[in-house]
């Protein structure tokens, strides 16, 4: 049974892999588990553009959330604020990193509360009209995966 399942997964991976080497790859995709009562949470990922043209991510939707926006956390003059962005641009052959205390997707009002280990599909709409489905894992942040750059 186990071997059979392994075979199925392997076959699936073989079929999926051509898409993974497409123009846009999504890595380290995760959603911060929301504390009880909190109706907002953030999603993070690394978008890699393998093509020679810039890719613009213009919209994200998910059946699991009422609304999703792109937000940039800004720490300026000791004040922390969030600025809504109309899109995320991934430069040609470049990377856009969404990470804690930086750029993130703000997820409003989950349809059901999500717990660590849950998998959530986000639908990413590109300016070309193409829609990519990407799988995000819900994680309880430990505080140690915080990015280390202190010079901004």
């Amino acid at each position, binding site marked *: 049974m186990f071997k059979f399942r392994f075979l199925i997964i392997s076959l699936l991976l073989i079929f999926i892999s051509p898409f993974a080497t497409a123009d846009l790859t999504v890595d380290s995709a995760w959603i*911060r588990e929301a504390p*009880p*009562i*909190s109706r907002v949470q*953030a999603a993070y990922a690394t978008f890699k553009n393998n093509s020679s043209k810039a890719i613009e991510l213009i919209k994200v939707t998910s059946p699991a959330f009422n609304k999703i926006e792109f937000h940039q956390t800004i720490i300026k003059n000791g*004040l*922390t604020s969030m600025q809504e962005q109309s899109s995320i641009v991934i430069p040609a052959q470049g990377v856009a990193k969404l990470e804690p205390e930086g750029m993130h997707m703000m997820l409003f009002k989950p349809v059901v509360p999500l717990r660590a280990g849950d998998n959530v599909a986000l639908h990413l709409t590109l300016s070309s009209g193409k829609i990519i489905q990407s799988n995000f894992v819900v994680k309880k942040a430990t*505080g140690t995966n*915080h990015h280390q750059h202190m010079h901004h």
Partner: protein
Amino acid sequence: MSKSLFTTLILGVIIIPAIVGTLLYQGGRVDRSDLENLNATVFRVPRDISQFELTDHTNKTFNQDSLKGNWSFIFFGFTNCPDVCPNTLSVMNVMANTLEKNQPDKVIPRFMMVSVDPKRDTVEVLSKYIPYFNNSFIGLTGKSSEQIDAITKQFSIPYFIKKKSPTDTEYEVQHSGAILLVNPQGKLHALFSAPHTPEKLINEFTLIRYIHEQG
């Protein structure tokens, strides 16, 4: 000047302090001047904290006297904050766990978040939110913005409620990312600016506490 007085002066003013200084230095002795190299702002004279009255997440009154008796780390945030607040509380949780493990002979400082959004962050909301990060953490809120301002103003903590319309319930609150440190005498001792990492906070706090305890 007699020769013996000259020798005494040389010995007393230059040589002995130099030797003592070197010995102390080699012994790992630190002093106030080391505080200048920290990221934290350490106040030369810790600041008095005047009256304020908040309610904690277990519905108990919390005022300036409640801060006495232990070191306290205080962060200002709100529960509808998706990124910075949960990140900072997670950092404080790592800090609490690491201090408990690495410094078992020391009392673990207290960690608290003061809500700058008392309208949405009621005691009930905080009672569900705060223990998620750490059961020993303290959540504080007020019955009005005035009660919150009584503490934010004296700590120079700015915050702005950004409602898009009068009925906006998903509003953002722009707020300071700083963590404040209050000493066991209940005085404002230092300020850590964002972004925070547990390692940096632990190292700097350990030094700040050591120097404070040396007097």
